């Protein structure tokens, strides 16, 4: 599937801003099931100093500074992405590490969570050692006893890890209410747990927190999702939004994505932009602004299917 995504962020300031420094993580990643064919940034006013680099997680970071007084800052990222359909049980976003034969794959898929846990914590293969960092707490996902208690119920004795995580994701979808008005990017996780409501970012954080509480490696994925317009209607421009979900690491298989907000496993309608330990690692646009006023923010995302040329 081919997509064209236009992600536009607009800041309006009450007083002119003289100087700002920004980092954008708005460039879709490459992975086994995804190819980013084009990515353009248009920033207004035009930045004096800008550069691209890869961060610790391999995400593309676009750094830019604006050194002239401005009342408005607009960042428009336009990307063309090709997403290959993932088979439901095999949507691993990284190449498998070992023997690719079906037998091994099938065994790995049915690996019990106890077995998977054991491998993750005792195996000394370099790639497994590196994954242990995703078991640890991260800035926005502290350890909480509630997470452990909640997660446990999905992890019955001998259950395959994949099945257990799928169950966890479904329970999050059922038990928590999607409520865009309730949380902001800064709402702490325990508020989300207390009130059982939140947005995709919170759902993803919950899933990750639950998995880490049980000692599994989990990470945060930011991206977009194609929203299908009602039948007989043209899709509305800018009606889409950034999306987020989580990914769990399976020894021998790699990372498997789950979208608890929509109770599904991403296939060809999810476009991956960046991943990290939590939202703080992949904030789409953040900056330090030198100015004295307040600001208003307007974000629009337009994610359209394109027919192959």
């Amino acid at each position, binding site marked *: 599937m081919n997509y064209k995504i236009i992600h536009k962020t607009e800041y309006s300031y009450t007083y002119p801003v003289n100087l700002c420094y920004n*980092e954008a993580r708005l460039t879709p990643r490459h992975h086994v099931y995804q190819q980013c064919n084009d990515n353009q940034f248009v920033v207004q006013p035009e930045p004096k100093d800008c*550069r691209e680099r890869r961060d610790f*997680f391999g995400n593309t970071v676009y750094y830019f500074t604006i050194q002239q007084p401005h009342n408005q800052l607009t960042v428009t990222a336009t990307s063309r992405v090709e997403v290959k359909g993932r088979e439901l049980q095999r949507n691993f976003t990284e190449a498998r590490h070992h023997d690719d034969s079906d037998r091994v794959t099938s065994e790995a898929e049915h690996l019990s969570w106890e077995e998977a846990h054991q491998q993750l914590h005792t195996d000394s293969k*370099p790639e497994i050692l590196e994954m242990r960092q995703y078991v*640890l707490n991260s800035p926005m996902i502290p350890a909480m006893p509630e997470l452990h208690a909640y997660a446990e119920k999905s992890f019955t004795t001998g259950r395959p890890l994949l099945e257990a995580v799928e169950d966890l994701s479904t329970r999050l979808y059922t038990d928590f209410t999607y409520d865009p008005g309730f949380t902001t990017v800064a709402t702490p996780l325990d508020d989300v747990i207390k009130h059982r409501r939140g947005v995709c970012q919170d759902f993803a954080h919950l899933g990750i927190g639950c998995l880490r509480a049980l000692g599994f490696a989990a990470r945060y994925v930011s991206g977009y999702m194609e929203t299908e317009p009602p039948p007989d209607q043209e899709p509305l421009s800018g009606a889409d939004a950034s999306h987020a979900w989580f990914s769990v690491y399976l020894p021998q298989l790699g990372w498997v994505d789950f979208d608890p907000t929509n109770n599904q496993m991403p296939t060809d309608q999810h476009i991956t932009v960046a991943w990290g330990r939590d939202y703080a690692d992949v904030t789409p646009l*953040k900056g*330090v*602004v030198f100015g004295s006023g307040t600001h208003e923010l307007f974000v629009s995302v337009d994610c359209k299917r394109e027919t192959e040329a």
Partner: protein
Amino acid sequence: MTDTKNWKVIGDSYHNAKSADQQIDEMLSRDSQINPHWHGFMQALDTLGLTEMESRHKEIQRLLRENGVTYVVHGEQQGHRPWELDPIPLIISNTDWDVISTGLTQRAKLLNLILEDLYGERRLIKEGLIPPEVVYAHAGFLRACVGLIPAGFPFLLNYAADLARGSDGRMWVLGDRTQAPSGAGYVLENRTALARALPNLFGEVGVHRLSFFFRSLQNSVLDLPLQYEFGQLGQRESASRMTSHQKDNPHVVVLTPGPLNETYFEHAYIANYLGYTLVQGDDLTVWDGRVWLKSLGGLRPVDIILRRVDDIFCDPLELRQDSRLGVAGLLEVIRQGNVMVVNPPGSGVLENPSLMPFLPNIAKHLIGEELRLPSVATWWCGEPKQRDYVLANLNQLVIKPIYRQPGGHPLFGSELSRTELDTLRAQINAEPHLYVGQEYIHFSTTPSLVEGKLEPRRTILRTFLFAEKDGYAVMPGGLTRCEGETGGLTVSIQGGGVSKDTWILAPEPEPHISLWQQRTERIQTAAPSEGLSSRAAENLFWVGRYAERAEGQARLLRIMLDKAKMGKMGLEISHLGQVAPSTRFTETFGEEAREVSELTYLRSMLRSLTGLTSSHPSFVNKGEQSLESELLSIMLDTENSGSLVSTLQALVSAAYAVRDRWSTDTWRVMNNIENLCTTLENSVPKDSNTNAQLLTDLVLQEAELASLDQLMIFLSALSGLNAESMTQTIGWMSLDMGRRIERALLLIVLCRSSLVAVQDEWIEDLLLESVLAAAESLITYRSRYRAALHFPTVLELLLLDEDNPRSLLYQLKRLQEQIRVLPREKLGYRLSEEEQLILQALTQLQLSDTIDLAERSEHTTQRNGLEKLLVRLAQILVDMSDVLTHTYFSHSQPSVVSN
């Protein structure tokens, strides 16, 4: 060897002072003999005598206090604590030091390689030499810093290690300081103080000098850009954009978190000693991919930053977003190779005790060597067996988190109650990988001078290293800290310990080295405005204003207190001296009128005081009943932001913010002012219920006048030092402009409150005399005019006399000179805002006529012309202060972080 009897006696009594658990001692051998490397010192001590040593000790403390050596203490007893130095040094023999410094160099090299790996490929983790949690769960591992420094370039430039001698006689490493180690400045200050108090000892004993180390440090810093370029070859496409001038002549700054930091004194001291600019985060800005210093003359590129700001605060864009101590965009400039930060952010990951158990293996793996200096035995709870050991021996171990939080302390198992141990056990079980247990070492004691006797105190030594071209230079000395009282388990300055000088014995005497003799080929010449940050200039400006304000307030207060002391209502006219209109007046109008007039006079003077202290309404509205208590409040009340004490506090804190700008003498004066300020504050009884009269009795004694006299002397000394001992560069100009503006404003206040209203002739005479006295122009008036007080003549002297350094015109002319040479962009023939303002003020003033000004306006009891002129001038001066602040001092605006 000569007569050794006596000093052996000192040694014996020292031996007897030791307790059973103090087994190993720096001075005494196991068989209680004085170690040979202590002989020289003990002989000298014996010649001097312990009593004399005690008095030298006092001398040292005085020197340190006067030099303003302080350590900011947080917590219960907040404030600046004077630095404590024990006169008995820790002495280390030449051979012992060889072992230690070789071990330290090896450790520094090893740690540098580890840093390079952790922020590069992380093979140590992938190959299983370091468990992932040891790094990834450590808050000092900064993912944004991965790839920041190209491989092959030294990462760990500045390194310090805490050492202690264990019962086996070897030095053990207790901890590593790898991001912004502090202490080197205190080492220098300790050495200076000790050398002054015990001048002969160093030569007799043969001690390694410290200046070699600092000289080599300076050279290494200057070489950094060259090294960096070398390190970058083949590593990155984008070459450093530094010009060859920058490489030869880099601009080096010391980045401090500011005066509230616990070791701010040292930041200023080191900057001053090494000749670098002391800056705070706000002084720097990132522009066009470079770091710049915001100086009075505009932006000036910065090439090297020696930082004292912790890792995570260095860049609000990529690290802690709420940081106000760093520079937004700094990491990206480092990545571009356009600035060097020493040590680069991220290096704090090595301040991590959970690395210690793995170091021996890493050493074998990376450099193929055994560790020469052992680390204190450490068990990392992230490994089940080690955790079990720690939990089983919790009450004997020292427990530390792997990441040291600000204000966090290690826990001593032996000091914890059963419940506390249970809590700790639960914490460890919940997140075992975040804790280590360490062996509690009974480390060695060193003699300390306690109440005229030598007593054993356990000591820890902090050593310092700096990267050179081919390795590391080790400072031949260090910061020794010893426990304040015997038996305590912690040895730290924050926890109340005492410091010591550290003597490394030299095989032969060394020549004295001055830092001036360095690098004749690379003399740095800087334009006057260079190197002075706008923030520093602003602080100097305010030092000028506050010093002048304090002087004006103190002078007027002294006049008032003098009067208040006399008689019931505090006025004794005859005291006013030579002019003596009182007799004539009393004869003419009688006693009753005299009292009424006294009040009128008093009210005018009080209005002046109110104006000078901006403590409205106080005397403007209130009756004279509250005279004494109000006077006291104006003088001593810290709650009253206009009081003399508050002004002094503001003066001291502005001066402290530019600590590196003052000569030792100036700082001594400043210290005297601070101490006097504390004395004044403390003279107010804490009980607020005390009635005004009691307060008055308590305080309005000779003592207060005496302290005001003293204060006037200190302030004059300060003003003299400012005028005569500061180079007249932009910094001095800022200070002087502050003084001029403030002096002009004070004079205006004085004139407005006392001279605008028309009074009976003889009261006016009284007022004129007091105003002249308050404006320090009474003597001039008398010697010049000899006649009675004449209103227009007084105005002439106070306002328009260009030769009177206290006159308004004099202040304005001086201001105009300063403003003329301020750095600015040329605007063609147009005058800058501040040039226009000063021209307006001068014109207004010079066009006025004192005879007209002295005239009473029709149908009023006022001199409206005078009032109008003074109001205009005051407004212009206030505007001027704002314009200067806006144009020259504040390039920055508050920052907002948004997501």
